[in-house]
């Protein structure tokens, strides 16, 4: 019996790639890995530019590998392979692009306090109880109120619009700051209450002008006020 393992060398070598095409693909891939790594390590561009640059390099590298390693489009029946490949790429764009787009949009359709927080953090638009209070483009100054020994210092704070107010809790228990004179509970800056754990602090942006009082929900004797002027 003759050994039938003789391999068919009739196939043209071109469709499977040669050593030089693998070397070219390998070197290009290596370059496309090192460049984005270098850019990220040295923070060459702004954040959004950097993200689109590294993703572009990723896609470029994918194309290099698909052409030089997978030899897409060089086989004897390239048509169906290519059709399948591009159909898959199309689906991937829909799945990933769609998910990111929808989930980002969802941030704007959350509960009012979460939505206003998101708007304030991402777009500098401040909204309280559905009323726009104007956007704070940048924070001007910070005021500190310390809670310790059952009282707040200072009792009274004078601030300007777009300042921030930080509550620092140095008491031995948690403090729940609510707005308005006791026993009324109002909202300020979209927040109905601020839970400040012991040893921690919380900061609010003063985006509503006027005079406001606040007190500790657990101990109404811990109380203070602040005036926000334009």
């Amino acid at each position, binding site marked *: 019996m*003759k050994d*039938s*393992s003789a*391999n*068919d*060398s*009739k*196939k043209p*070598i071109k469709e*499977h*790639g*040669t*050593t030089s095409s*693998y*070397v070219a*693909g*390998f070197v290009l*891939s*290596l370059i496309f*890995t090192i460049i*984005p*790594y270098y850019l*990220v*390590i040295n*923070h060459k561009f702004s*954040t959004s530019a*950097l*993200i689109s640059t*590294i*993703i572009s*390099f*990723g896609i470029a*590298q*994918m194309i290099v*590998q*698909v052409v030089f*390693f*997978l030899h897409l489009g060089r*086989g*004897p*029946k390239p048509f*169906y*392979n290519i059709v*399948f*490949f591009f*159909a*898959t790429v199309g*689906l*991937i764009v829909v*799945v*990933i692009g*769609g*998910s*990111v787009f929808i*989930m980002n949009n969802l941030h704007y359709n959350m509960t009012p306090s979460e939505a206003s927080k998101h708007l304030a953090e991402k777009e500098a638009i401040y909204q309280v109880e559905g009323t726009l209070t104007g956007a704070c483009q940048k924070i001007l100054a910070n005021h500190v109120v310390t809670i310790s020994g059952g009282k707040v210092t200072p009792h009274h704070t004078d601030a300007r619009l777009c300042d921030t107010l930080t509550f620092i809790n140095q008491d031995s228990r948690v403090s729940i700051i609510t707005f308005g004179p006791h026993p009324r509970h109002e909202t300020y800056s979209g927040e109905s209450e601020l839970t400040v754990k012991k040893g921690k602090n919380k900061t609010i942006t003063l985006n509503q002008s006027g005079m406001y009082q606040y007190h500790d929900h657990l101990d109404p004797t811990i109380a203070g006020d602040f005036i926000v002027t334009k």
Partner: protein
Amino acid sequence: MVNEQTPTHHQAEADDRALFGFWIYLMTDLLMFSVLFAVYAVLHDNTDGGKTGKELFDLNLALTGTIILLVSSFTCGVGMIAARAGRKNQVLTWFGLTFILGLSFLALEFNEFSILIREGHTIQSNAFLSSFFALVGTHGLHIIAGLLWIAVTLGYIVKRGLNSNMVRKLAMLSLFWHFLDIVWIFIFTIVYLRAFV
């Protein structure tokens, strides 16, 4: 005896059909990865107050893994050229090298995961880590499958020699291995590099 000598172009046609079928599998696998990528893209900020990717990942280690995988993709390709030329010993050398490189990549990833878990950053910690472990872990499982496949195929070649049937199997294996390399490029870009932007 007539049946033994299958006409070459019939064999080639069967090979093409098998490779096309395998190509379809790879594309569906790619779709699965794309869903995991979408989940990661949506959840990567949801750390629930825990550490972010920037604080958890070691970019140099990730780069090392990327280069190891790239080199293994190259050795796999060169092995495939040797297979088509019918050079058995070269096939064993190049695919053996691919196996060793794949194993070192896996060791790096295992090391990364075990350090994270030891420090309390598990798949249950937060949404970010759940999506991270799901994405990178699925790729790791594919690498394990690929390594087993290489080992079994090389075992067959040692035992039964390099015939055209084996060359077809090696062609699928190399497609699979290049595919894993491409998926990893995106993991490196979107998971690791992105965290340090």
